[in-house]
């Protein structure tokens, strides 16, 4: 796993963090050279070449923020074959040569330092759990299991944790994702796979030494490695197919109602923040995001002339037609398996916490949590959009980011207070989470749409 460029909004601690990681990598390298095993040159070169190859072949995005390569498998094998210092070298060399020009130098530096640390960690974990150094002398299942298999498993888990911790740190500073939320997301989404694919590293070592195939095993092991890569591509593609499907539906809606695209994006981002603050699990955060992206999809079934008029000018019956969009929307996306959990959220977004809402009059915890989040987030987005287009922009200030901007400072407190004034409508726990999320990210960031980003 390694970081990839994506809309940077870095914290000022980021350079310090990267410098610390690089310093740690250098220090660990020196320590390993002094106390660890010295690797032979030929296998070192071969493994470094495989490392470079695997990093080149990495699959860009597993989730939108993590890239996966089978470098981790090579690093694991290096720890056993070469020792800590050898693994350090392989980790350091692999990410430096990179054909992707979009990767900044500091990302390259960080990736190299991170991979070196992962390699060292695996190498020491292997050595400290009594992994054999005389691999060629191993024979028979019992000795291979205890002197190679078990130490490699320990090293694998240590590597996985090291990787997740270092990544969560940098993503936290780089994009403001809460540290623990990201850590949990990485470990849940790819932790098991990371450790599981370590098995290939184990097989690699077996074929090389106990089976006596020598360096030629590097050629043979490529087949399982490529199979693993294909598997990870499928994992990424599955997520991408979901994103694409949702995007397509939003595009269909935006063809009818152009402002809906921006609104979906803003509401989805805010909903994700709130869900993170509430401590929901990774899959539930995903559901909340999809539901938020599609919360207005039912507008496709509402006459355009009603959608174009301001809500205040609608008669009671017209308003009911517009409000039925929740039910319509939930029905429209029926039959898409991965959106099944999001459907109830879309259907019940108009419910009130006190049970006097539509369409089913559910109350309290009977309302799906996705719907409770949606209700709050949509209302907050409405209010904030009103603020932006309201007095602030009329007064002719310098637009977003200026001193007199209505969205800056404590404006978000006003929004949350306004929502809380509507007693019984919203889930108080979600309001608390909204306040925390806006305290952290600011209202202005929440209201940036595609158009503003240019």
């Amino acid at each position, binding site marked *: 796993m390694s970081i990839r460029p994506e809309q940077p909004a870095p914290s000022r601690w980021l350079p310090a963090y990267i410098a610390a990681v690089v310093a740690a990598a250098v220090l660990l390298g020196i320590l390993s050279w002094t106390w660890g095993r010295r690797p032979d040159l030929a296998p070192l070169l071969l493994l470094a070449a495989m490392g470079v190859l695997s990093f080149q072949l990495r699959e860009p995005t597993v989730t939108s923020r993590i890239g996966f390569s089978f470098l981790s498998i090579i690093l694991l094998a290096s720890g056993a074959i070469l020792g800590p210092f050898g693994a350090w070298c392989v980790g350091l060399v692999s990410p430096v040569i990179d054909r992707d020009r979009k990767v900044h130098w500091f990302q390259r530096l960080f990736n190299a330092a991170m991979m070196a640390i992962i390699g060292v960690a695996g190498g020491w974990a292997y050595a400290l759990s009594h992994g054999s150094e005389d691999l060629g002398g191993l024979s028979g299942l019992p000795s291979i299991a205890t002197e190679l298999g078990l130490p490699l498993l320990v090293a694998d888990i240590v590597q996985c944790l090291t990787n997740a911790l270092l990544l969560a740190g940098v993503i936290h500073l780089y994009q403001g994702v809460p540290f623990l939320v990201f850590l949990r997301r990485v470990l849940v989404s790819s932790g098991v796979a990371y450790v599981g694919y370590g098995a290939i590293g184990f*097989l690699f070592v077996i074929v090389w030494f106990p*089976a006596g195939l020598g360096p030629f095993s590097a050629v043979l092991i490529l087949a399982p490695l490529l199979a693993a890569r*294909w598997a990870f591509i499928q*994992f990424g593609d599955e997520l991408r197919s*979901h994103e694409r499907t949702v995007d397509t539906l939003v595009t*269909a809606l935006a*063809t009818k109602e152009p402002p809906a695209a921006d609104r979906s994006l803003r509401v989805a981002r805010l909903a994700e923040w709130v869900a993170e603050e509430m401590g929901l699990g990774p899959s539930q955060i995903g559901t909340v995001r999809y539901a938020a992206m599609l919360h207005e999809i039912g507008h496709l079934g509402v006459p355009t*002339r009603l959608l174009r008029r301001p809500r205040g000018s609608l008669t009671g019956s017209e308003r009911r037609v517009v409000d039925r969009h929740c039910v319509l929307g939930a029905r429209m*996306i029926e039959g*898409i398996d991965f959106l099944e959990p999001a459907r109830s959220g879309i259907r019940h977004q108009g419910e009130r916490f006190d049970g006097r809402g539509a369409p089913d009059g559910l109350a309290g915890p009977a309302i799906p949590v996705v719907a409770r989040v949606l209700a709050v987030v949509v209302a907050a987005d409405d209010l904030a959009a009103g603020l932006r287009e309201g007095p602030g922009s009329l007064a002719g200030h310098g637009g977003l980011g200026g001193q007199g901007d209505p969205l800056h400072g404590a404006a978000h407190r006003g929004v949350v207070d306004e929502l809380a004034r509507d007693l019984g409508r919203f889930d108080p726990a979600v309001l608390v989470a909204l306040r925390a999320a806006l305290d952290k990210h600011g209202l202005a960031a929440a209201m940036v749409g595609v158009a503003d980003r240019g």
Partner: protein
Amino acid sequence: MRRTIRAESVAVAVAAVTALVSVFAAYQAGDFPGWGSDAELTLLLVFGVTIAVGEWFQISAPGLRSSAPLATASAFGLCFTVELPDGGYIASGAAVVIAVTSVATAIGVGARLLARHAVSFIDVSGRLAAVVVAALLYRNVHLRGTGAAVLANDRPEWQKAVTMLAIAAVGLLADVALTSTLRALAARGGLRRIVVEELVSSVTLSLAVAVTGVLIALAAPTLGIAALPLFLVPLVLTLFAFRRYVSIRATYLQSIRTLSRLTDAAGYTPAGHSERVAALALSIGRELALPERELLDLEYAALLHDIGQVALVEPIPGGATVLAAPADQRRIEADTVAIVRETGVLEGVARILEHQTTPYRRVRELGEEIPLTSRIIKVANAYEDLNRGARGSRSRDAALERIYLGLGYEYDPRVVDALLRVLDVAPHHTDSGT
């Protein structure tokens, strides 16, 4: 249909004869390990069970031949495993390997049949053929029967690996040769095209399978039978990923269905319009003998052809695009294409939809290239719009009359002829002049 059944029964016969002959030959040669040799017996048993279980976990997807990677890899492993730890070895000839494999395969396939899972006997017989060829080449030709087995083993490990890989490759080619011949028997298609399709759709997985088999055999001298489950682990992980691959296809299919229903749900088109256009377009496409892959794109394009209508402020009466002004038709078309492109995987479908309203005369007069599939959609949509799903012969004739008016100008005469054949109407001979 009947040809397919014949090919399947030929495949079953081939597999059954293989099983019987190999069991008989092994028995004749006295190769089966006696009850005394426990280690060898256990080994054959474990391989047999793994092959049977591997047959159960078959994978298949539309456009991909079904395969059983775990079973084939284990069978290759059995082919090539000669040495065992502590100086033991399997000296038996090819017949034993083939007998164990074919009996285990029969058990696995039988279990699938009992559980009413799909089984392609053509692919099963292909897998057996690969093992038969590999086993004969390695054990009887390369190792010259039983006696030389141990003597031939003093060469470096990597040379052995290369030999095994080459033999496994020959086996896999035999697999493709057999299945393509049987398929050519079933369909009228040319043998060469089928061979190429089979090769392309199986080469990556086959490579991983062959290498796994070789790795099992190479690790057996140190690990013994434990090599089998250990080296199957990467393939098992790949099987899980394959499930995912299938679910991705399913997601796209589901979202296409949902998108195609959006205009119905929003009241822009009459209920079921896209499905009817899709069914009609598919029949016309089959009538014009389009290849399978184009038919799939045609179906998706027909399902999605009206999605751009969601941008209209007021629905067109009856959702009939054929009645809208040409400029409006083109705007709907552009919106449709933009939405379909957003999926990122339906480029072929988007290209079809880009030309769904272009009149046929642009092909004749300006030499513009309009895909046949687009012309099919244009005709199918026009017929559906004009006919409005009615079944009576009067509304059908009225709709056809309107289409005749645009023959050669709006509509491709070849496609309209195919439409008539699909609707089972006597052809209306007007294309002599066009």
